[in-house]
C-alpha cells in the first residue's frame, strides 16, 4: 500500500527514514526513486547522502545546517508537488546475466550449512515447495522467464535487490535463520520477493539457486565494464538471467579471469512506466 503522506522517522540526530508504503511493489519503488531524484535536484546543502530502498529512503544530513522538522517539511512539499502517480518514461539499461542454475559451488555451500543444520531443506527444493513448482527445471524456467527491476543497492558494495517485472514470476522465499557465515561470490539467491546476486564472498541469508561467473562488483576495476564504477548495477536498470551450460559457464569464467569479459549491456531502450503497468495488469489478469 502506498501511504497518503510520507511518514518520517528520525534515525538518531543525523538521519531520517522516509517511508512511502509497506509493500515490495514496483509502483512504490518507482515513486521512491522519483522523490529521491527530486530531493537530490533541490540540492539541500544539509543533505550528505540518500539511499533509495524498496518502499522508503534514508536521508543522512547535517543537523547543524538544517533542523529535522524543516527537512521533513521540505521533503513533504516536494512530494506534494510531484504527485503520487507512477507515470512517465526513463532510460533503463538491460543487463543480461549468465547463470548456471544449481551449480556445484552453491550446492556445496548449501551442503556445508546442512552439516550444522540438517533439518534445513535444500534451497532449490524449499523454493519449489513454497511456490508450487514441480521441480528444479520449473524453477529455472520461471526465474529466467522475466526481466527484473533493480529496485535498490545496499548492504554490501554492489549488492542489488531485484524485483521481477512480470507479476506471474514472483517467487517468495524465507531468509536463512541463522544466516550463513559464507556465500560464494556470484551466487544467486531469493529472499522475500527479491532476487540478489552476491557481489563478493559475504555472509548471507537468501536461498541459493545458481551462480553467475560474470562479475557484478570489481573493486580493482580490472574489467572494461567497470571503468567508471566499482559496481555494475544502478537503480532503474533491468536484469535478465540467461541459463548457460557448464561449457559456456567455464568459458565466461576464464574470460573474467583474463580481464577480457564484456557484459551484455543494452543501453538504447526507454522504459515506459505507463505501458509497463498496463502490461503487468494484463499479465496478472491472465494468471
Amino acid at each position, binding site marked *: 500500500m502506498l501511504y497518503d503522506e510520507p511518514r518520517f522517522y528520525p534515525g538518531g540526530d543525523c538521519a531520517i527514514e522516509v517511508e512511502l508504503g509497506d509493500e515490495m511493489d514496483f509502483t512504490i519503488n518507482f515513486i521512491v526513486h522519483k522523490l529521491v531524484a527530486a530531493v537530490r535536484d533541490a540540492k539541500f546543502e544539509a543533505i550528505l547522502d540518500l539511499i533509495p*530502498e524498496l518502499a522508503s529512503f534514508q536521508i543522512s544530513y547535517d543537523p547543524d545546517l538544517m533542523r529535522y522538522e524543516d527537512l521533513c517539511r521540505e521533503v513533504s512539499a516536494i512530494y506534494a508537488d510531484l504527485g503520487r502517480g507512477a507515470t512517465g518514461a526513463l532510460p533503463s539499461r538491460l543487463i543480461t546475466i549468465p547463470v548456471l542454475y544449481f551449480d556445484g559451488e552453491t550446492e556445496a555451500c548449501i551442503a556445508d550449512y546442512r552439516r550444522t543444520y540438517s533439518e534445513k531443506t535444500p534451497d532449490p527444493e524449499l523454493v519449489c515447495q513454497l511456490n508450487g513448482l514441480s521441480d528444479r527445471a520449473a524453477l529455472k524456467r520461471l526465474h529466467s522467464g522475466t526481466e527484473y527491476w533493480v529496485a535498490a543497492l*545496499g548492504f554490501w558494495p554492489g549488492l542489488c535487490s531485484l524485483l521481477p517485472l512480470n507479476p506471474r514470476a514472483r517467487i517468495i522465499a524465507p*531468509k536463512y535463520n541463522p544466516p550463513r557465515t559464507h556465500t560464494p561470490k556470484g551466487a544467486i539467491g531469493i529472499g522475500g520477493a527479491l532476487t540478489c546476486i552476491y557481489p*563478493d564472498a559475504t555472509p548471507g541469508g537468501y536461498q541459493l539457486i545458481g551462480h553467475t561467473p560474470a562479475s557484478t562488483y570489481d573493486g580493482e576495476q580490472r574489467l572494461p565494464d567497470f571503468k567508471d564504477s566499482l559496481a555494475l548495477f544502478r537503480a532503474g536498470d533491468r536484469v535478465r538471467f540467461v541459463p548457460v551450460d557448464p561449457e559456456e559457464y567455464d568459458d565466461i569464467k576464464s574470460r573474467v579471469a583474463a580481464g577480457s569479459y564484456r557484459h551484455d549491456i543494452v543501453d538504447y531502450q526507454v522504459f515506459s512506466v505507463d505501458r509497463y503497468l498496463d502490461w503487468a495488469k494484463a499479465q496478472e489478469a491472465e494468471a
Partner: protein
Amino acid sequence: MSGCFTVVKPGLQTCVQELPGRIGFLEQGFPFSGPFDAWSFRQANLLVGNDRDAAALECQFLGPTLKFQSDCQIGITGADMRPELDGEVVPMWTTIEVKAGQQLVLGAAIAGARSYLGFSGGIATEPVLGSRAVFHQAGVGGCALVAGQDVPLGGGAGANEIVTIPADKRPGFSNDKRWSIEALKGPNDDWLSDETTEIFFSVDWKVQAKSSRTGIRLTGPEFAFSERALNKNADHGHDPSNIIDHGYPLGAVNLAGQTPIILVHDSPSTGGFINPFTVASAALWKLGQVKPNEVLNFRCIDRAEATELRAEIDAATRPEVLERV
C-alpha cells in the same frame, strides 16, 4: 616536502582513516567508514598542525611498529598503547618530533581500544571514491596495513611549536568498564512494546567478543514486539524483527532476531531488520573505545541534547584548545 614510513609490524588491523569518510556512495552499498573515535582522531591531527579531518592511522587493540623514512611530527591520542620511540617512552596527547630512521612501537591497549596516530602533512594514500578512509572487509580504499608496506605522507609544515591537548578537553575513557551511551528513540521504536523500550534504557548490555568496525553485538534481555511487528504485511518477512529492506542509519541499534547489533562505520548500509534506537552522533566515539565484555547503559536523550553534545565535541576538537608545552 613529503616522506613516508615503513610498516615493520602491522598490529591488529591498523587502517588509514579520514573524515568525513566516503560520502555519496551509500546507495551503491559503500559505508561511510572513517575513524571510529572521531574525537581522538581529530585531536591527533591538531597536534601536528593538520586540518583536523586529514588522513591518519587508526590502531585497534594492538598497535603497529613503524620505521620513519623522513623527519616529521606525530601526535598519538585515543587508547593508551604505551608508545615508545627508539625504546624511549613518549607522551600521548602531545606533539612529538621524529627523525628519519627512528622506530615507533605501539603495544596492546591498556585503557580504551583504539589509538590514533596523526602525521604532519597527513597520510597521502590514493583516495578511492573520494576518500582515503579504509573499508577493510571489502578492500575499499586499501586494507589494513601489512608488514613491509611503505605509507606515503603529504607535505606539511607541521605545528609551529610543541603543543598538547589539556586533560579536560580529551575524551574521558571509562575506568570501571561501564559506559553511558546517549541514544535517541527511532526510527523503529514503534515496532517494540512500550515495556521493552523502557527496559532497553534501564538495563546493562554486555559487549560481545564478536564486535568490530562492522558492528557491536550486545547481550541482554529479550525484546517484546508491538502490534506493528507482529501483525504486518508478509512482504516484511517472517520474524517480528524483519522489515522491508530499508536504509540503516549510522549508530542504529539493529535488531536481528533477538540480538541487538549497533551499526557503526563499516556496517551494512541497508538491510531487512528494524532499528528501534539510534546512538547519538556525539556518542559514537565511545563505541570505538569499548572493549568486549564491557557494559553499556543507554541514556535516552532528545535531538536538543544531541545538538548540545555535538557542539561540545566540536569545540574540543578545534585548534583553540591546544596549549603550548
